[in-house]
């Protein structure tokens, strides 16, 4: 080494913080993961991604002591990732919000107030907004991290009480295109199979997902399968960026951002031309579609694919791989004994995200790589309860609990009758989707908005634009959270909530699996579970507006103890009344059953007996899925009873390559893409307060391909300006053969104003799913200086 070890450390650290001021990093004792005197262990789910790992929290004398995985859980087999191992350290963090905070104007300082005062203020302001503008003047913006009971109760009060379908949540930003894809290809939301296919798969097709960082414990299962079967299991990784996930890949197809629809069509082309498709399966179970009401034929499909020969597609994708590689990928995909595809935001956060999902499903339908062991078209969800709480619980503007569409009168009536509210109470028109909702905030049309457990100030695309609205003094904002975030900084009222394991409720993960976490410790100070907050608020709102229907919405829950009895009653109402005979039937998955299971229950689970087996491993398969039997219309082994396909077939879609909304040009010559890093969760309000996690990645940087860096005169660590038509960041460079040439990549967790990449991203949306195209926009890339010391920043 040319320099001493000491010098190296000193200089390397200069890249890190110049100041440590303002970040509280209490050091907890090391994890105590095995039995220790006086420690009791409490089962629950991990809080920090969509995998659904089961964990146990160790508690001694009411104080959390450590966390360990549960070995007999079928989600994680005892393994946890770094975030999972450490999230319990948030529980006793000194920055926890412990008292309600209020300010009349957003320029005022917050003052501590009592719960009585806080709930009065919230009821008054929402009541006033409702009186002035009706249901369109109020809104709820929730989270895929809220418990199902919380999302369900919030949306019940909004729809049944305030007559507003302005119910949205951050899953719109990550999962909406996957929902659209499942509904339009398979007729029903959520995957057919699940994680149990991973150990039986012979080919993995990982596209638009850095599974190693975003879903580490699931990646471990894929890695294990590959390493134990190096010659017989193939891994294909498809991404414009080489990532940690690529380390286990036999083939990495790196391409020009936004051209993967062409690649997927080219694989279909090979499968058709080489007759690798399952003719009997397609003939029996599939139909071809140009539009929802426009059927077509196999021959039309084949003719469409003529535009996507491997040669043509390779060119469209930027000539970064050969036509023969496409052929090989298609042969591996079609010819394996079982192929599992996995994807996340690379396909979903796109202007044509639904189409990308359809083209992925096309390959599985064509090849029959579905409904059998080791085969599935598996969209990984990003958050722990985006599926369970939001997709199933009615947490989006166009859906009601139990996968019911708002626009269907019959389905609205079912919900109204279940709630005992007058028919017609739920508006027939869907509410505003996320980007429309925050546009309405910008315009002052929404006068009161409740933001729960999420930070849109940082997580919306093109966030500078939407933050202006949230600063308006005529828009009343309530935030419920455990820590301050950039969004609480724009709120009038901040309500401290109980954290995970400080309350009881259910999370539903990627694979239709619902899992219970019971309260193990008390929340700090006066923090309260959201279900208590909503119930009390609704009671005051009913009095304020003199509306007995609002009171009716919470009447079944009056007086119940909030740590267990209240969420149990909410879960019972939701599952017994609103999932009955729906495709996500959860009637068998009571708290009593969930409490017995190491790893919860996969729906459909209409009966207690079926739930106690773990539920349904494969949807639509007779003998496995009880609804495939109860809904059966013929002698075929597979029954596609999903609500969106009355013809009960799988749909193969004719979809063309579609460019992103914004592509590079002479003025903005580079692609920008963004993603999640392993050490941090979303906007790092939790993980940034845990020393191990903060130190691992104290701030965001921009990854630049070495060839681009050379052309631009950018050296490692140089400060680089990333500028789009919407905003600017200045970040240190990491010169790295990760992104394809012509593309830069930035992780999105950093709260610092100079490194908050959603100032730069684009807010174009998919016309079907309304999900924004976070993943692709055009930017300028310019060196502004040599390396500069940086500050980590947590609000």
């Amino acid at each position, binding site marked *: 080494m040319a320099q001493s*070890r*000491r010098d*190296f*450390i*000193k*200089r*390397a*650290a*200069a*890249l*890190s*913080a*110049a100041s*440590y001021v303002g970040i509280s990093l209490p*050091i*907890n*004792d*090391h*994890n*105590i*993961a*095995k039995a*220790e005197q006086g420690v009791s262990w409490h089962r629950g789910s991990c809080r920090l991604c969509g995998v659904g790992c089961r964990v146990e929290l160790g508690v001694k004398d009411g104080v959390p002591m*450590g966390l*360990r995985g549960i*070995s007999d859980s079928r989600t994680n087999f*005892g393994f*946890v*990732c*770094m975030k999972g191992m450490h999230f319990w350290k948030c529980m006793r963090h000194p920055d926890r919000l412990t008292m309600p905070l209020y300010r009349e104007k957003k320029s005022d300082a917050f003052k501590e107030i009592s719960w009585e005062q806080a709930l009065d203020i919230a009821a008054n302001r929402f009541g006033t907004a409702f009186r002035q503008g009706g249901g369109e003047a109020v809104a709820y913006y929730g989270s895929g991290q809220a418990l199902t009971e919380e999302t369900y109760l919030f949306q019940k009060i909004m729809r049944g009480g305030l007559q507003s379908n302005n119910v949205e949540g951050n899953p719109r930003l990550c999962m909406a295109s996957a929902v659209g894809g499942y509904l339009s290809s398979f007729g029903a939301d959520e995957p057919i199979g699940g994680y149990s296919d991973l150990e039986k798969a012979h080919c993995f097709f990982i596209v638009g997902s850095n599974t*190693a960082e975003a879903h580490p414990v699931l*990646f*471990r299962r894929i*890695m*294990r399968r590959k390493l134990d079967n190096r010659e017989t299991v193939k891994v294909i990784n498809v991404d414009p960026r*080489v990532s*940690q996930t*690529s*380390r286990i890949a036999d083939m990495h197809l790196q391409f020009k951002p936004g051209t993967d629809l062409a690649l997927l069509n080219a694989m279909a082309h090979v499968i058709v031309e080489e007759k690798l498709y399952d003719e009997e399966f397609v003939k029996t179970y599939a139909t071809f579609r140009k539009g929802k009401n426009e059927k077509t034929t196999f021959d039309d499909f084949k003719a469409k694919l003529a535009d996507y020969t491997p040669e043509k597609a390779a060119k469209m994708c930027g000539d970064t791989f050969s036509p023969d590689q496409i052929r090989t990928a298609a042969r591996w995909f079609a010819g394996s004994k079982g192929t599992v595809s996995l994807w996340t935001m690379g396909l979903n956060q796109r202007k044509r995200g639904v189409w990308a999902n359809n083209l992925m499903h096309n390959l599985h339908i064509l090849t029959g790589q579905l409904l059998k062991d080791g085969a599935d078209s598996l969209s990984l969800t990003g958050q722990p309860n985006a599926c369970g709480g939001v997709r199933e619980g009615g947490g989006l503007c166009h859906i009601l609990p139990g996968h019911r569409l708002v626009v269907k009168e019959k389905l609205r009536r079912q919900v109204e009758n279940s709630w005992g509210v007058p028919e017609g109470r739920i508006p027939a028109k869907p509410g505003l989707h996320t980007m429309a909702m925050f546009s309405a905030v910008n315009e002052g049309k929404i006068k009161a908005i409740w933001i729960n457990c999420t930070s849109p100030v940082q997580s919306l695309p093109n966030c500078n634009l939407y933050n202006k609205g949230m600063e308006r003094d005529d828009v009343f904002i309530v935030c419920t959270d455990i820590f301050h975030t950039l969004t609480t900084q724009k709120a009038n009222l901040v309500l401290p909530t109980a954290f995970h394991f400080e309350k009881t409720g259910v999370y539903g993960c990627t694979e239709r699996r619902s899992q219970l976490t019971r309260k193990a410790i008390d929340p700090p100070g006066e923090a309260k579970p959201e279900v208590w907050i909503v119930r009390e608020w609704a009671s005051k709102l009913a009095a304020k507006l003199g509306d007995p229907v609002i009171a009716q919405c919470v009447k079944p829950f009056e007086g119940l103890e909030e740590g267990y009895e209240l969420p149990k009653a909410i879960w019972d109402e939701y599952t017994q009344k609103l999932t009955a005979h729906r495709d996500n039937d959860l009637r068998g998955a009571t708290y009593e059953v969930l409490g017995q299971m190491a790893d919860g229950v996969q729906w459909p689970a209409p009966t207690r007996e079926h739930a106690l087996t773990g539920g349904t491993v494969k949807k639509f398969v007779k003998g496995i899925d009880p609804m495939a039997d109860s809904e059966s219309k013929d002698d075929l082994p597979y029954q596609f009873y999903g609500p969106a396909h009355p013809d009960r077939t799988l749909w193969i879609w004719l979809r063309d390559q579609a460019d992103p909304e914004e592509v590079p040009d002479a003025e903005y010559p580079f692609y920008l893409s963004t993603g999640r890093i*392993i*050490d941090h969760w979303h906007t790092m309000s939790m993980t940034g307060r845990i*020393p*191990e996690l*903060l*130190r*691992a*990645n104290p701030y965001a940087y921009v990854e630049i391909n070495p060839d681009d860096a050379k052309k631009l005169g950018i*050296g*490692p*660590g*140089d400060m680089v300006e990333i500028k789009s038509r919407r905003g600017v960041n200045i970040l*240190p460079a990491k*010169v*790295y*053969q990760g992104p394809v040439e012509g593309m830069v990549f930035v992780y999105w967790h950093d709260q610092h104003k100079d490194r908050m990449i959603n100032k730069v991203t684009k807010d174009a949306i998919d016309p079907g799913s309304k999900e924004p195209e976070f993943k692709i926009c055009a930017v300028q890339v310019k060196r502004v200086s*040599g*390396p*500069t*010391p940086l500050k*980590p920043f947590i609000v």
Partner: protein
Amino acid sequence: MRNILKRSVKTVFAVVAGSVLIITAGAALGAADGSLSNHPELSQQEMLTPCADCHREATPEIEKQWYASVHGIAMVKCYQCHGTFETFKVTPSREDCATCHADMLDKCPTDKSCWECHVPHMFKERK
């Protein structure tokens, strides 16, 4: 891939060369078992450097073994087993391993440390 991570090492060095700020070593390290006594003293700012950024150069063999192991591929980083500066242990205890491998503690001999059978950083079973 290996080359890619090599490049990130260069990133750190290059930053070093351009940096005008040399931070004075400050807070003493507080590892619970005193196992950091041979480690250079670090300021709070310096502690914001991921372990592997230095150890790729300071202890290259260990870093290589880890990188090629299942822990390296699955991104189980240094701090997940060793803790951070204030809680650092050179040799993780059975309890540390138990966070993920609790079932193995019930199956393995109780009179041995995990590393007596599983080679540290490589995690291959000793033959």
